[in-house]
């Protein structure tokens, strides 16, 4: 679409569930997946007479986020009530922040299609409570309500309409995803709904300053769906306009089965939420000292870490980006790199290659890896000191992964130690040349490519354990005559 006459304008509202143990206004647990209605206390149920008490942890988490995106953390923010009736909203209002959010005027940088840095503004981030869930499936003509999620703390992060393609939207969202996980304020689990997103999408003729009419896309619960939903919506809007019709401002739901968006409710039926400050809660007042103490707790953030990985470890820019996309991966890398003399790039290659492949194969996170950073480092040291070749290492890695012990133990048990004794290699080379006289003659007659054949034969004879560089050299010497 970028080449077309139309420019796409996207703003995102991301809901990140904060990783607190208890709810934002009650002591009930936030753990996911419990039996319906077993994790909702009287406050969550909106019983007559109960009152909300703010979980201080959410304030710290929101402040951390604000500082991480270079935003202003408000010295005074106010909880307001958003009033509407729905069965999964027990009080008949949601406690949120409206006029005075806790975080305002932030920013972050993504890479645009041309590889240039692009600033995306963050309008605000505010704290609010999640609603429960309505369950319609399998209940015949009635609906069920599960209030376990009620009162789960959310940070709603609202961007400026600064993104110009689905790709940029994804890059922005990934960046936010990385940041909240770095900060440890959200587990970012999209399957469980702890990181979800609504997208405001519009198109306008390239060069026009005024925004087109936007549609709000809901139910975007994976990076893939967001991209598909936005692209579908953009095409739909362009088609409408080109046919001389109008885009209607409305909320549309993305249906991933059909890969389409369709209207949810139109503006005409929109609720008047009658926001007003919640009289049950005092304004949240944050001192400069508090903000400073939160700043001290901030971990190194992804951008800074990436730059450091390039400078300190001499990694390729792209690799540093991949390794720092997750704090756990970055930590794994640093732990491994510190424990071996092997070059950092080799450590990086193994993490992005074999390790990542094994994790994907078994659907594991790096935290659950069956090869620890120390174990990987131990193996890489054996490559570095030529005890094993890179090829043999793959075998060793799988054995460690399979629980057969450390690299040294595996090498010892399986007799995988590399053969570097020149006389031993020479003996094998002699044997191979003697067994293949016609190939030797062809090589000597100029068929250089046959060297590969001979290397293969020698490696076969040595079960892959001969040092490949030595094999090469000795073969060349012996065949060269």
């Amino acid at each position, binding site marked *: 679409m970028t080449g077309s006459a139309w420019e796409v304008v996207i703003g995102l509202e991301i809901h990140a569930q904060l990783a607190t143990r208890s709810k934002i206004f009650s002591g009930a647990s936030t753990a996911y997946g419990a039996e319906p209605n077993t994790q909702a206390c009287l406050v969550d149920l909106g019983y*007559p*007479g109960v009152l*909300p008490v703010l979980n201080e942890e959410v304030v710290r988490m929101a402040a951390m986020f604000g500082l991480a995106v270079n935003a202003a953390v408000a010295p005074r923010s106010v909880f307001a*009530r958003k*009033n509407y009736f729905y069965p999964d909203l027990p009080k008949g209002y949601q406690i949120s922040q409206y006029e005075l959010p806790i975080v305002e005027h932030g920013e972050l940088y993504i890479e645009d299609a041309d590889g240039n840095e692009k600033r995306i503004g963050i309008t605000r981030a505010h704290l609010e409570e999640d609603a429960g869930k309505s369950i319609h499936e399998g209940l015949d003509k009635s609906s069920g309500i599960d209030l376990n999620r009620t009162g789960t703390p959310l940070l709603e992060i609202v961007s400026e309409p600064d993104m110009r393609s689905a790709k940029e939207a994804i890059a922005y969202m990934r960046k936010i995803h990385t940041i909240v996980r770095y900060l440890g304020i959200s587990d970012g689990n999209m399957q469980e709904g702890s990181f979800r997103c609504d997208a405001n999408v519009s198109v306008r003729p390239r060069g026009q300053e005024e925004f087109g009419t936007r549609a709000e896309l809901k139910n975007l619960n994976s990076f893939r769906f967001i991209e598909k939903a936005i692209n579908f919506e953009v095409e739909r809007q362009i088609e409408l306009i080109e046919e001389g019709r109008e885009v209607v401002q409305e909320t549309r739901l993305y249906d991933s089965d059909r890969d389409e968006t369709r209207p949810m409710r139109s503006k005409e039926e929109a609720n*008047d939420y009658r926001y*007003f400050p919640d009289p*049950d809660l*005092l304004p949240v007042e944050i001192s400069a000292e508090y903000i400073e103490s939160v700043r001290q707790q901030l971990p190194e953030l992804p951008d800074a870490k990436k730059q450091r990985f390039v400078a300190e470890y001499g990694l390729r820019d792209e690799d540093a980006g991949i390794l720092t996309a997750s704090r756990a991966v970055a930590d794994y890398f640093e732990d491994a790199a510190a424990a071996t003399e092997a070059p950092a790039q080799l450590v990086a290659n193994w993490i992005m290659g074999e390790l990542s492949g094994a994790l994907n194969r078994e659907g594991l996170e790096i935290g659950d890896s069956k090869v620890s950073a120390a174990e990987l480092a131990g193996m890489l040291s054996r490559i570095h000191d030529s005890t094993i070749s890179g090829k043999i290492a793959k075998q060793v890695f799988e054995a460690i992964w399979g629980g057969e012990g450390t690299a040294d133990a595996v090498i010892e048990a399986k007799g995988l130690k590399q053969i570097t004794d020149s006389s031993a290699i020479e003996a094998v080379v002699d044997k191979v040349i003697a067994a293949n006289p016609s190939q030797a003659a062809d090589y000597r007659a100029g068929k250089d490519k046959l060297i590969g054949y001979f290397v293969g034969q020698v490696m076969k004879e040595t079960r892959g354990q001969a040092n490949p560089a030595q094999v090469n050299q000795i073969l060349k010497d012996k065949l060269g005559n």
Partner: protein
Amino acid sequence: MSDNHQELHARSLTELAAGLDGGEFTSVELTQSLLERIARLDGQLNAFITVTADEALAAAERADEARAAGTGGVLNGLPIVHKDIFCTSGVKTTCGSRMLDNFVSPYDATVVEKLDAAGAIFLGKSNMDEFAMGSSNETSYFGPVNNPWNAECSPGGSSGGSAAAVAARLAPAATGTDTGGSIRQPAALTGTVGIKPTYGRVSRYGMIAFASSLDQAGVITRTAEDAARMLGVMAGFDARDSTSIDHPVPDYVAGLSKSVKGLRVGVVRQHFDEGLDEQCGVRVHEAIAVLESLGATTVEVDLPNLDLSVPTYYVVAPAECSSNLSRFDGVRFGHRAENAEDLMDLYCRSRGEGFGDEVKRRIMTGTYVLSAGYYDAYYLKAQQVRHLIADDFKKAFSDVDVIAGPTSPTPAFRLGDKIDDPITMYLNDIYTIGANLAGLPGMSVPCGFVDDLPVGLHLVAAHFDEETLLQCTHQYQQHTDWHLACPEAFK
């Protein structure tokens, strides 16, 4: 039980405590005698929605055992009544509404918990205006309460049942709540003492919300000393209420004996403008004169924005109530309409059937003032005026220790007289609403009669200065006997 025990009901809470301490009678005897009185006399009043006779007697037995073991709390074995707005676990809590006619709370309000822990015995739940919205107790789903002084008159509201029960000597003390005058006005109209503490002084946890920024729990008794005893137990910080304030609770009883000599009493010029019944005005002036005779000095003070307090209140309170009452939707608890066709039908009919007219009126008013396009003109403006009113009081308290005036513009009015005229009804609270808007403590004390109906003196003090209110009214009661007068039918 000896013969003189029949007079137990005439004694104050403090006197009953002394009797229990002295072994003159047991808590079971005392509880039994008041329960008998309630059974015999409440038919004339309708002050109770629920009487918890069995629970009360069982609790009285435990209190007597505790006393014997020397472990009882400061109110051990003393019977009281809870306004039916406080959640009581295992006992129906209706809030005077059909909506909650079937509601049994699974937990105790903090106030209930504290009084329970102090050993108080609760005899039952008192009648009230529906969701505390009303000044006559006529909006109750359970019918109006009759004034013990004249059955054809209202006892005031919304804590009408509590006030009537105390005035009729069915209990020495009752809890109440006050959003715009709901403790003080019924106290004035029934010849009892009523105190609404500073906003944040007593926990609101478990007290069904009407207007959260104005609601405050308090107590109705016959003497200031009894009020001091009750408040000492009820007051204090509660981590479950974010608006409760962590401020030390003084020994209210110890402060009572202090003389009022040198106390500066502010008399509000606007309080005696038109609207006040002339004879009521005379009684209030006489009461102020008593304070002067005890050494207090009077200073005229100005509350220039006082006339804005009623309109301000009737924007703020309905706004908050429209949101607070949204939880009563027929889904989880309370009244649910039968055979609902769909969700909207369930909502509309459950609420339509469950709420009475006055509650609906306020929900609609509140919804209107918060809606898009009207918020600034009504809600926001009202909040600004609220600040002006609070500033007026603040200024006044730089010159005086306490502000004195009438509690209510007239003595008790006839049931049915005002119920169809909401504006006139709302004006009943003109002298009391200011204290709620400013979060100040206010208190009403009986100061005489007009046409055989009691009249109250209203006192307001600075934030957290309940001590001065209690001291001032106690000293006044040491030199007057209005509080000893008992309605003929309840002697």
